[in-house]
């Protein structure tokens, strides 16, 4: 579905600018100018989180924490093998993608573990990144309950998705 959405949005926007007699090219350039400064204010946050995520993974600390978590996850219907994925997904897209690849190699893609892992990765966002980037240009330092709530909501979605995998 999204395959069609994006080209259609572009065509609509361009045609609109023609009808309204606006210079699409100069507007586009003016808008694109903001991309670099945007990423410059975000990169420090991104770097800090992703570097931490990588040592967390490489040191095996995340595997140890996952080991403790997996019985609890099994209890709510998420395969214990997916614990590390659940743990790293909100921190880093690249880090959790390599965990997903490991799961596919170790347990296959089409078993219940592979399916649940696909649902966990596919239905969640990098919560910490989104939170950091949205506030990167504002004075707000304290996000109060935003991150815990987003994590809880994502986790509940994961539980529902994994249990559906067992039925469907």
């Amino acid at each position: 579905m999204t395959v069609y959405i994006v080209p259609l949005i572009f065509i609509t926007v361009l045609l609109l600018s023609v009808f309204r007699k606006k210079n699409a090219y100069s507007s586009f350039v003016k808008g694109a100018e903001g991309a670099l400064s945007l990423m410059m204010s975000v990169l420090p946050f991104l770097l800090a989180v992703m570097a931490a995520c990588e040592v967390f993974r490489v040191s095996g600390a995340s595997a140890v924490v996952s080991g403790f978590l997996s019985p609890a996850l099994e209890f709510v219907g998420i395969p214990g093998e997916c614990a590390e994925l659940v743990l790293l997904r909100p921190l880093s897209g690249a880090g959790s993608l390599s965990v997903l690849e490991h799961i596919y190699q170790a347990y296959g893609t089409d078993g219940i573990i592979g399916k649940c892992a696909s649902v966990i990765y596919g239905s969640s966002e990098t919560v910490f990144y989104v939170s950091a980037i949205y506030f990167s240009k504002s004075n707000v330092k304290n996000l109060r309950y935003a991150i815990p709530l987003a994590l809880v909501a994502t986790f509940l979605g994961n539980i529902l998705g994994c249990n559906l995998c067992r039925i469907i």
Partner: protein
Amino acid sequence: MSIVWLIIMLVSITALLFINPSSALEALIKGANDSVTLALNLIALYGIWLGVFEILESTGISDKLAKLLRPLVRKLFKGESEEAEKYISMNVSANLLGLGNAATPMGIGAVGAMKPNEKNPNKASTNMIMLIVISATSLQIFPSTVIGLRASAGSANPADFIIPCIIATVSSTVLGIIGVKIIGALESRLSKKRELKLRVIGEAS
């Protein structure tokens, strides 16, 4: 966030000290490298979307979109200016289309245009939290990365997880919205009670 980061760093690097001390810096640099690669990709991606939004802005369509979505936006976000509502409606519509990356630049604009927290400008207002939660649980309508990875790993039917996946992503967004509404309502009730108490004490003295 700061505490989580500190604990992860301390625990992991301490563990590496005993297991494999030489890989500590290596892993940090690998992570940093990934972030720079991602940032470069995102500059390109945001450049495209910011450009498209600027065209949209110049045609005046973004104002019309905001007007169209105003009933929904006002239900989720109470008492924001028209400027903020415009950013919010573009952010929310991009999120609802599953275009999380296109939503991000608008989200940053929305946070800038939103009213600061009345009690403490350093803290996020309830509306800002709503924006974050909607975006951080954003709808992933077509998880193309996962489908591609499954296909290359030899899956018989790479897209067969998509129904539970969509149900999971939709319900996480809905649960997030409900959560913000409940906590927001509890908070305003608490602060009203506190105000009432203060007034009673004030009148008594």
